[in-house]
């Protein structure tokens, strides 16, 4: 393997088995980490941020060794990183590429924008149906109010 010769490069970039999440907006790296619960994972994880990107200006990248996501889990990051791309790595090779898709329903991770909503006043898991996937607008299953992309706050 060629890049094995370059030791510094090896540590940062190559993983044998796992997932690389690319094209995360640099500002949203930590929200992505929270949404995926990576702060509670024991696997080896490498983050890079403020990397140059033609599409996003500055992007972030996450490399997870030995971690593979189910589609419904990875799609949760579509709220903050709709352009994110996944590379699935097996034996140092990219065996599959995936894009994220905004799911039909969002549970737990978003706070309802309505301060008078019961979910902001009592210990309740939030639940939304996605009424617009392009501009991301979420309808609360409880108060029926709409939370727009700009107001999305990750719990």
């Amino acid at each position, binding site marked *: 393997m060629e890049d094995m010769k370059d030791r510094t490069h090896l540590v940062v970039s190559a993983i044998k088995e796992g997932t690389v999440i690319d094209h995360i907006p640099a500002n949203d790296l930590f929200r992505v980490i929270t949404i995926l619960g990576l702060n509670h994972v024991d696997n080896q994880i490498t983050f890079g941020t403020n990397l140059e990107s033609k599409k996003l200006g500055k992007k972030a990248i996450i490399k997870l060794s030995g971690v593979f996501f189910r589609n419904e889990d990875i799609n949760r990051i579509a709220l903050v990183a709709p352009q994110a791309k996944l590379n699935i790595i097996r034996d140092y090779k990219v065996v599959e590429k995936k894009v994220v898709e905004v799911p039909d329903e969002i549970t737990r991770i978003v706070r309802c924008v309505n301060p008078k909503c*019961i*979910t902001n006043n*009592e210990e*309740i898991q939030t639940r939304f149906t996605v009424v617009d996937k392009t501009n991301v607008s979420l309808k609360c*299953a409880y*108060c*029926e109010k709409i939370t727009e992309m700009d107001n999305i706050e990750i719990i």
Partner: protein
Amino acid sequence: MKNRSLVSINDYSQEEYLRILDLAAEFEKQPVQDLLNGYVVATLFFEPSTRTRLSFESAINRLSGRVIGFSDSNTSSATKGETLRDTIKTVSNYCDLIVMRHPLEGSARFASEVSGVPVINAGDGANQHPSQTLLDLYSIRKTQGTLENLNIFLVGDLKYGRTVHSLLMAMSKFNTTFYFISPDELKMPNEYKLYLDNLGLNYYEFKEFTDIIDQADVVYMTRVQKERFSDPIEYEKTKNAYVLRNSMIENAKPGMKVLHPLPRVNEIHLDVDNSEKAYYFEQARNGVYTRQAIISSILGLK
């Protein structure tokens, strides 16, 4: 509908609306029935609403059911800091059905998820009040003979008015043409107009309605509250345009009816009360029949 909570007007299909209205018509013919003998219904009013509570309790009493509950949160355990979850889980052991009014939006949906018995939403903040909408539908069908192809005028506070929003959603299933009459500050929100656009339904917006009153089948009045205006001068200038007087409805269709969810403050002048077009007090009576229909159908007794 058996054992299903009624939280939002959007929970029921068009067929289910009509089934409730047909049942309500039966109860109007025979309001006193023994259906709820042995049943206990809890009316949990975390904020006061005399009219709605009495209407529900009247409906339950006329069906020989028993009522337990409280009429404001000062007399409930909520003042001791109990969560809504715990109150509902506990009370659902004491009764067959819960009727709940709560100031927080979404509280009724949440209650229906944790309750062991069905929940009827009697108002959750500014969100939903489905029994009001069903009694409005009943009143409209009863006075007009149909729900189809009517011209409905919605007048007053169309921005914050929960009743007009729910009525719009429900009536949109019946090819209604809507006339929105309100001051600029209280116009119908865009999301509802978009909803009608998507259904291909017609609606018109006006600031006053004396010239077009002859188009109306139903004039649904709401209260324009002073607190809603950012500029008190603007309120003083506009308030009289949204007070209905008998002289304003002289040119209306003979069968036109004026509805109002009540309580009224001053938005319908007393001189309208004696008109044949005034229907708001009968509308309140229809509320009892409609609630009898909702309760007995949820308990599977009809």
